[in-house]
């Protein structure tokens, strides 16, 4: 059945098998600073995942709102790296084409595109790409941007790695291997939407 297959897939992702240890104590949701904005807190999300309700899990905005603050991971009494499972679920959702409602996905996209192009993160480039996708934010954050510039907190210069072509080749090869099933599907990396896992 599909659900079993999806749970199996989750368990095979890095950090995914830890979900079996969860005792549903609720420390994670209780500690999460973003819980109020999530459809379901981490605990409930895991309960649904373990129960096989993956459709709801993939529709949820939980891992798009997750701020990666690691509060949950630090306090979990079972020592589960909750953030790893969040990332795994995110990848699975994206791989199946679930489009999130949150604008935060543009940040992830912008990040991915910048790193792919330059081999390294450039905050200015990333912001540029992001603002193209979400122009309203340019207006909202204009004064902040200006302040950052004036205080020399924002670097405009882009500094790519020595050989961006080689880096792109590496990524291509990794994607190939992932498709062949030799490299783990969720090797820590970038995410995108519409079926692009890496």
């Amino acid at each position: 059945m599909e659900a079993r297959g999806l749970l199996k897939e989750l368990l095979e992702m890095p950090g995914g098998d830890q979900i079996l240890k969860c005792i549903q104590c609720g420390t994670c949701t209780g500690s999460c600073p973003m819980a109020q904005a999530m459809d379901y807190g981490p605990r409930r999300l895991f309960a649904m995942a373990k129960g096989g309700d993956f459709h709801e899990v993939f529709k949820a905005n939980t891992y798009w709102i997750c701020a990666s603050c690691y509060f949950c991971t630090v306090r979990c009494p079972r020592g589960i790296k909750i953030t790893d499972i969040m990332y795994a679920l995110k990848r699975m959702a994206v791989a199946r084409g679930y489009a999130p409602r949150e604008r935060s996905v543009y940040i992830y996209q912008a990040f991915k595109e910048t790193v792919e192009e330059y081999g390294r993160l450039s905050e200015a480039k990333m912001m540029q790409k992001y603002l193209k996708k979400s122009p309203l934010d340019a207006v909202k954050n204009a004064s902040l941007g200006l302040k950052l510039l004036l205080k020399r907190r924002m670097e405009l210069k882009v500094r790519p790695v020595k050989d961006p072509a080689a880096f792109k080749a590496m990524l291509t090869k990794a994607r190939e291997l992932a498709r062949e099933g030799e490299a783990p599907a969720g090797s820590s990396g970038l995410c995108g939407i519409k079926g692009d896992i890496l």
Partner: protein
Amino acid sequence: MARRDEPRVGVYICHCGINISYKVNIEEVVDFTSRLERVVVARDYKFMCSNIGQELIINDIKEHNLNRVVVASCSPRMHEKTFRNACKKAGINPYLFQMASIRELVSWVTEDEREATQKAKDFVRAAVRRVIHHEPLQPRIVDINPNVLIIGGGIAGMQAALEIADAGRIVYLVEREPSIGGHMAKFDKTFPTLDCSACILTPKMVSVGQHENIKLLTYSEVEDVSGYIGNFEVKIRRKPSFVLEDKCTGCGECVKGCPVSLPNDFEYGLMDRTAIYRSFPQAVPNIFVIDKEGFSPCRNACPAGLNAHGYVKLISAGKHEEAFKLIMERVIFPASLGRACPAFCERECSRQLAGGPVQIRALKRFVADWYYENVGLEPPVVAQEKKEDRSVAVVGAGPAGLACAYYLAVQGYPVTVFEALEKPGGMLRYAIPEYRLPNNLVDKEIEFVKKAGVEIVCNTPVGKDGKRIDELFKEGYKAVFLGIGAHKDRTMGIPGEDLKGVHHSITFLRRINSGERVVLGDKVIVVGGGNSAIDAARAALRLGAKDVTIVYRRSRVEMPAFPEEIEAAEAEGVKIQILTNPVAFHGKDGNLSEVECVRMELGEPDESGRPRPIPIEGSNFKIPADSVILAIGQYPDSAPLAEDGLEINRDGTIWVDPETLATSREGVFAGGDATKGPSTIVEAIGLGRQAAEYIRRFLEGEDLKARPYEEHWLETVDREEVLKKRRYEVNEPHRPSERPVAERIKDFGEVELALDEERAVEEGRRCLDCAGCCECRQCELLCEANAIDHFMKEETLEVKVGSIIVATGFKPFDPSNLVQYGYKRYPEVYTSVEFERLNNAAGPTGGEIRMKDGRVPGRVAIIHCVGSRDENTNRYCSRVCCMYSMKFAHLVREKTGAEVYEFYIDIRSPGKMYEEFYNRLQEEGTHFVRGKVADVTDVTQSPEEEGRLVVVAEDTLAGKVRRVPVDMVILSVGLTAAEGADKVAHLVGISQDQDGWFIELHPKLAPVSTASDGVFIAGCCQGPKDIPDTVSQAAGAAAEALSLIMRGQVEVEAATSYIDPEICVGCQQCKKICMYSAIDYDPARGVCVVNEAVCKGCGLCAATCPNKAVTVKHFNNEEIFSELEGVLL
């Protein structure tokens, strides 16, 4: 059967149901085995350990004349004994048996059947090859000593003790706290019946205390355990409680007099207790103990051994007269010391590191002044009977001489003090200026000394101008004390020293203190860096000098004067010029006009340890001056005494034996500056008192060195440790104030003002009671039963027992590191054990549940699983917390009517009536919220939360994050291994698991035995559990111990070492490494011999012997080699 017999081996392969047969092909193994050499019979059976299985073996042995048996089944830990017994029953020696483990080591751990079968075959072959080399051994039989040692006096230890004692055997029950009772004594009610804990515990405690077969050793610890089952030798250290157990009636009067305040560990620091205390009213034994950890740093810093801690505390308790008496036991002139002592005690005071030292000196001044004003000049103790035939002559009425005189006089020895100068007092009167120590005060204190029976004759020098020592003896004095001080000025020996205007400090100060107003002029130079120099400089100011400069040849750091004095001088306007030394004085018409000086530089250290001052050639310069005062050193006027038969040191001091203060002439003693060189008043007084004691011994014909001077002395406690354990506010001391500079330099009136009574008492309260008990001895005065002995020493008891039961209990988890719960940050967050004390009628709130500000809480949160079920702290579940949390819910509701919120992950209520208890709590309206608490915070988000603590947790059943404002939070902390459990484990030879709990022999079938024969465990030390289970285990351990005792004898493993005298060369390597000293060297034969009674069979000697003369029976080299070949070939 002799070894030369042809070995005939029977091999039995067990199926163990399907446990072995599901992985190992038994048929194959049997077939393989039957074809091995020497194997006569090879069989298999489903359950070899059953009766039928054993019958198989026995029959085969008889039928087939077998003389070796191999069983391939489970671990030898399980059934080696069983099969050995079967062999015994069949008539062959039980050691001609070998077991191969093919279950724990093969079938249960191997995936592949082929591999499992091969491995089983290898093990069986190895066992067969080995058993051929086995020899028959006789097991050792040892007697069982019927006494039992029980370590730990909680409910487990007490229960076991009662069971064994009721059976008529002797029990030594050792408990490290002053009372038995353990944690149960701290509880109020117990779940689920809500019995009052004390009500069910105290009858047992009383039974234990009164049982004739139980030797109760409280306040004691086990120091060493040696021996083996049936024959343990135990050393028990009994800590001194300073209260005689058989005399104390437990009346409690002593507590009323104790001024010390220490954190009460029994109450988890929620309240304080006195140094003499009883943990709780129903303690058994019902006696008090004194918490004395050593001596406080102040006390051991005082050169006269004055108990500073003691009198400071007495003052803080308003007991000024008692404080004065305590002071007078060790020193005289308290008012003078209170003004002029450098206060070595204050420098060591722990408060130095916590705001500022307790002003001990100022307190001494306060109490001395108070006593003189309110009680008068009456010495507290005066001997009634005078020992007329043993009178003593003292030379010198300074602090040393008068101290010696006083301490002899109060014991009844008539003393006459001969003083060369006009008035008595020595340096006190004639050197220390009156702005530090007024002479009329000196008069008063000397009057005090005279009232003790001391006669002082002035204007009577002893020495070259007056009486000789021989004369004194002729006059009938039986002993002489020389306290002549160091009154002679050193001279510089430079040109111009005889000019008018060049003064020497001691002479100068003597003139001033006699009332003379020496005219110095405007510009005064003082040469020197010691206290005399400072005194001279400040006196010069008061005599009208406008410009006073101290000139010193080294730098500031090397100046020997007290830092406070140097600061005071500078505050008054005295200038200090360092690295300068005079080389000549120039004058006009016989009067001084200039001082020629040279600049100095510092070189390598000289004999004094300070850098040598080296004059810089050609750097001479002149300073104009009206007067110069040379304060470059003093020495005793001891030259004439050399003619009286006394040995004098090179520096002028009188030689004395450092212990007895006896000089080289019999009957003549000396002390103070005369023997030490210029030092301090307190040192002089200390030496005077010491000499008095040795003079007394001399007068009574005692051997002077038979006993030390200080018979009662304890180590100084560690300041850092003290500060860690005490709760205190870091605050400034009440320092005595000083008169303003401008005013005080105009006259010789006292500079320092006294502390008033209120501030003195408050200052005394700042004392942290470093050593615990301050030995003020007030408790002794109040004890009608004379049960207090402050000089009690620790005792060691040696006992012999046959078995040991360890019942050392647990320690509650300390949640201080879990910052999210706010423990120790918010006052209203309690651990469960602290909360128990709030509920207990003998606790800090008398059993009422109150917040720290006295309010009744309206809403209480109880947080489960603090320190349990958590990878970050302890992984295990502590088993009792759910139940006791619910107990609290009930008690809170009942006593205060408050709303109770229980935050849990699971409710664990497995025992009898436990689930019903849970139901009851639900029906009482307890709010059960399923969610582990994420935070306890005081950051509020709504008006309802103001002034309260907010508990944040997800209510997982409702799926919402809740913020619950409450008044009080209780953390249900888990159980952890007891403090010092590792030490106990090591002592008795048992192991701890990864969580610190002691390991039982078998988790299911032998929960109270351990791998060490004769040592049993019971209660929480084996793992967290509730009271019913603890009592069950205690009874179980007692039964095991009694079973041993009833058997009377037990078989001990026969596998000891043996040394072949033919091969041994006597190199004694084995003897050196044996950890049990079980090997002796026989010089007659030149070989080593093993003492089988002591040998434990570890085999280290065998592995060490270079000639292989040592073998371990049943584990000798041949046996192991053949086993090796069996698995490898």
